[in-house]
């Protein structure tokens, strides 16, 4: 039995995010260009990291679960800088 999965956008639309003005993730694409694995692209459960044609990383912070997977799997210190969004901002799990 296989049911049609919801699209990734529909999946993310089930989560409430209070998007703050400040990006709580920063990525140093210069470091990323020398990265061969780009583990953040596959591992981030919110799919926030996208490789660019020039070998860098494009990311958005708006739909972040604040889980920390990206900086934990990143093998280059300093490529991903990660803090919490401002108080009250960011993901709001309704059930959790």
């Amino acid at each position, binding site marked *: 039995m296989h049911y049609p*999965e919801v699209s990734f956008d529909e999946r993310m639309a089930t989560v409430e995010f209070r998007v703050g003005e400040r990006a709580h993730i920063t990525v140093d694409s210069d470091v990323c260009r020398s990265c061969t694995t780009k583990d953040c692209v*596959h591992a981030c459960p919110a799919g926030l990291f996208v490789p660019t044609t020039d070998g860098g990383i494009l990311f958005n912070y708006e739909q972040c679960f604040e889980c920390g997977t990206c900086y*934990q799997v990143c093998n280059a210190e300093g490529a991903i800088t990660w*803090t*919490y969004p401002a108080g009250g901002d*960011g993901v709001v*799990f309704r*059930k959790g």
Partner: protein
Amino acid sequence: MPDDTMTADAVVVGAGPAGAAAALELARAGRNVVLVERGAYPGAKNVYGGVVYGRILDEVVPQWWTEVPVQRWVTRRATMVMTPTQALTVDYRTSAWDHSPYNGMTIYRGDFDTWLAGKAVAAGAQLVTSTVVTALLRDAAGRVTGVRTDRPGGDIHAKVVIACDGVNSFLAKEAGLLPRTSPEHTTLGVKEILALPREVIDERFGLVGDEGLDIEMLGCTSGIPGGGFLYTNLDTVSVGVVVGLTGLAAAKTRPEELIARVKAHPGVAPYLRGAELKEYSAHLIPEGGYRAMPRLAIDGMLVAGDAASMCLAAGLWLEGVNFAIGAGLAAGQTAAEAIAAGDTSARGLAGYRRRMEASFVLADHKRYRNAADIVLADRMQREYPGLICDFVEQVFTVTNPTPKIGMIREFFRAVRRNHVQLRSLARDGWRALRAFR
């Protein structure tokens, strides 16, 4: 919160189960305690994966089960060993867990954490939400003297800081107690909450009234070290996987794809027919256990809950919320005593560890300190589920007119067919016996 610097006896960072319990004990001891939470409400940033075991709550509220925001009381606890097309389920059911004092329950973290933090507030703690603690305040000698928050002028000075700031604990990292990253000791849990009518859940899972089911799964993560879970709420079912970060990164498989595979498994799919996705969530889990725990007390600061790697991930036992509450209670009691005695140095706070060694919090962690290695080992993940399922399948496959060959020969055939080395099987069996003794 006023725009000026605040002073308190204690500041607790994070209003999850550990923080709420710590603040509760301090407030009960008559101490002025501030409980700081970065979410809009307690639980807004939190996710769990199955069952909250309530026994520790006996120390929080008498007859807590009459008021806790429960979804269902777990009366069925199943373990499913799977390959992509097979599943062997050991399903335990007891009516001992369907009435007070109960054993485990399913909850929503938004409800549960808000309820628990409410107990601290009722006892006199001051809860400050939507506020991020951004740094520790320290004196010239390096002892922790409070926290900086992201509010203007939002420093809070305190005799003790209790860091209950979760798996990413930036406070424990800032204090040098935890490494910046530890992917080898960290797993990612991803979960879907799926809506189904209550009667449908009751029928499909064989439940009555507020009974609930929790299934833990092994062999459902495409060879990535980890496992899966499914548990019932009142009118939703939660299903997800937990996978090691190192293995996930190496496999280059998307986390939501791993959930999709579990949901499509022939042993799971019929349960979820027609269910509608209500919330997708993700959270890290510290699974390093006893051997990965940081120092728990330094001058002016204690660490509790996920921040101190207190999730027990020992295969059969996957517990976190209860350990966080146990640690939080011990931290709050210790801090209250240390404040009263006028010594909140590491030495004055040393009773925290002794308290937890005498209780389940550190005793269980110490006893099962090697269990996670066994469960997440390659053979346990990639070889043994197939071996077990294959053996059971052969035992139950009737081969008439060929006669049965007997269980022992059948087992060794399965061992050979699955390319399992007998020597490693024996060694792993022995190690498992020792790890779970």
